[in-house]
């Protein structure tokens, strides 16, 4: 490694997806010495996730929208002397220090070793993970997240099955279905809980982002060509199977997402890709006390000002962490944040672009916000917390008999959210079942598990 571990960077960017890449390259252009950190070995994040070189993919662009934007940024990053990418760097905590921040890192997927990166400022570009809502059978092998199916396809060129139902809510479903079909899967149905009517309420916003429409239309026509049936206002209310999924039951939903009795129909499949949009991954900032806001989709995101500063001095945030809005918005915000960190005035066109995309994102978010009736497809024995195997009945007991009225108390009383994933998969469901309104961010002091010996090494630093 060309730098000593104690080197103080001007900027550490956490996350090498669209926002982080754009920020690192722009900041370096503007004269800042920056380090770009990511848990993965390669840049790209989840959006630009792509096959390992050993797979020899000649046309990775076929799995991506806007692939050229990525290759352009990646090439600029490689060529830059002031920007350095460090892969395999999983950041588990940020610590404020006298001269900025200590970025605490565990190395590689095995968490083999600890290191600390120091920087005057930090830009959080940690993206998002998928929002899940439990349903009977969702823990069966073969049930995967929509993003997970895409990630495994993009990176490993594999599918979870031959006949894959795609379900949930949000624009990711169409993208996932279209990739899966392109890769040879049979997708008997795309089951979307919302009615897509939300977009139509403010057509002006839609018209302002034609690229999004083109992207959506592209997926739509690809799906039509392959005979994929789109089922709006419907949900998978159960996955069937014993050792793995063999079929799903789909039901129509009322306006509040309550499944309508008598509308159930079974679809045979050997895999299900499911997701309900994305949730900002913000614990590195909230553990430092950064303030948050709740978006129209009910997701908690970081509160940032017009220059993308969080409420923690020296800490900026770009992309999905500010509210999920897609790659184009993330690219714009990365660039804007870099200007702000470098003390340069923002480009007016970029500001306008960001405002337009942000408005569109909020509209999309509102359209796909889960309706409260989704709990109607739960059964008492449905596991809500996958890690700790906590069923609905235990959560209801905590709420109805033990006085819990918020997700943290439910967690203390049931262990829901206390397992390996630290509530990332069950968080929204637990919050909803707890009856909480306007719950704050989940507390996650360690952004990923850290071997005890590595924490211990911090004591002697």
């Amino acid at each position, binding site marked *: 490694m060309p730098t000593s571990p104690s080197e103080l960077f001007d900027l550490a960017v956490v996350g090498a997806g669209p926002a982080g890449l754009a920020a690192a390259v722009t900041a370096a252009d503007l004269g800042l010495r920056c380090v770009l950190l990511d*848990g*993965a070995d390669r840049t790209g994040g*989840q959006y630009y996730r792509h*096959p*390992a*070189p*050993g*797979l*020899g*993919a*000649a*046309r*990775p662009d*076929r*799995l991506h929208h806007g692939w050229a934007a990525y290759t352009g940024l990646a090439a600029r990053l490689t060529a830059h002397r002031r920007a350095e990418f460090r892969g395999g760097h999983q950041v588990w905590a940020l610590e404020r220090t006298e001269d900025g921040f200590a970025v605490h890192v565990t190395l590689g*997927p*095995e968490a083999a070793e600890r290191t600390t990166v120091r920087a005057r400022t930090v830009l959080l570009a940690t993206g998002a*993970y*998928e929002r899940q809502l439990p349903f009977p059978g969702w*823990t069966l*092998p*073969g*049930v*995967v*997240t929509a*993003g*997970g*199916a*895409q*990630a*495994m*396809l993009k*990176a*490993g*060129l*594999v*599918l*979870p099955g031959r006949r894959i139902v795609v379900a949930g809510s949000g624009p990711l479903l169409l993208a996932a279905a279209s990739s899966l079909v*392109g*890769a*040879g899967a049979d997708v008997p149905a795309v089951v979307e809980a919302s009615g897509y009517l939300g977009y139509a309420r403010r057509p002006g916003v839609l018209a302002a982002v034609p690229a999004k429409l083109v992207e959506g239309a592209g997926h739509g026509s690809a799906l039509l060509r392959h005979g994929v049936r789109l089922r709006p206002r419907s949900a998978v209310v159960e996955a069937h199977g014993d*050792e*793995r999924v063999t079929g799903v039951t789909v039901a129509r939903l009322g306006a509040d997402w309550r499944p309508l009795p008598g509308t159930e129909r079974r679809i045979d499949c050997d895999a299900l890709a499911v997701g309900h949009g994305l949730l900002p991954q913000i614990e590195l900032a909230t553990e430092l006390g950064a303030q948050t806001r709740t978006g129209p989709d009910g997701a908690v995101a970081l509160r940032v000002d017009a220059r993308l500063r969080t409420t923690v001095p020296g800490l900026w945030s770009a992309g999905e962490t500010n509210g999920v809005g897609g790659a184009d918005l993330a690219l714009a915000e990365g660039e804007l944040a870099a200007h702000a960190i470098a003390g340069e005035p923002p480009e007016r066109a970029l500001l306008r672009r960001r405002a337009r995309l942000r408005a569109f994102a909020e509209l999309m978010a509102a359209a796909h916000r889960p309706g409260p009736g989704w709990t109607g497809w739960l059964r008492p024995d449905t596991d809500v917390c*996958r*890690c*700790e*195997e906590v069923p609905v009945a235990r959560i209801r007991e905590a709420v109805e008999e033990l006085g819990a009225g918020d997700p943290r108390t439910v967690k203390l009383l049931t262990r829901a959210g206390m*397992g*390996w*994933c630290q509530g*990332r*998969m069950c968080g929204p469901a637990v919050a909803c079942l707890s009856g909480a309104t306007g719950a704050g961010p989940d507390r996650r002091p360690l952004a990923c598990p850290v071997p005890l010996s590595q924490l211990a090494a911090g004591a002697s630093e």
Partner: protein
Amino acid sequence: MTRRRTPAALVEADPGPAHRIEFDGRPVRALPGQSIAAALWADGVLAWRTTRVGGRPRGAFCGIGACFDCLATVNGRANQRLCLLPAEPGTVVTTQEGHGRADLAV
């Protein structure tokens, strides 16, 4: 005759030579750069862990390292995320029962 649509065909992949990893004592083919989870999916294996409480089968769910459902024992080390770990030649993967740490019990 049309070529069968596959992920590899979609991106016109020309992978390096395949190698082998071991899953529960039997060989599984892996392509260079694939994660262990990808190699197992390609082999039709979707589960490589049983849960602590109910003993239910689990495998990859989120595919990006966030859900920790894809834990298994790799080269003797418990609780490794197969969706992140590369399938290096000779990797030995074992279905993990529960916490995977029975050897530590007293």
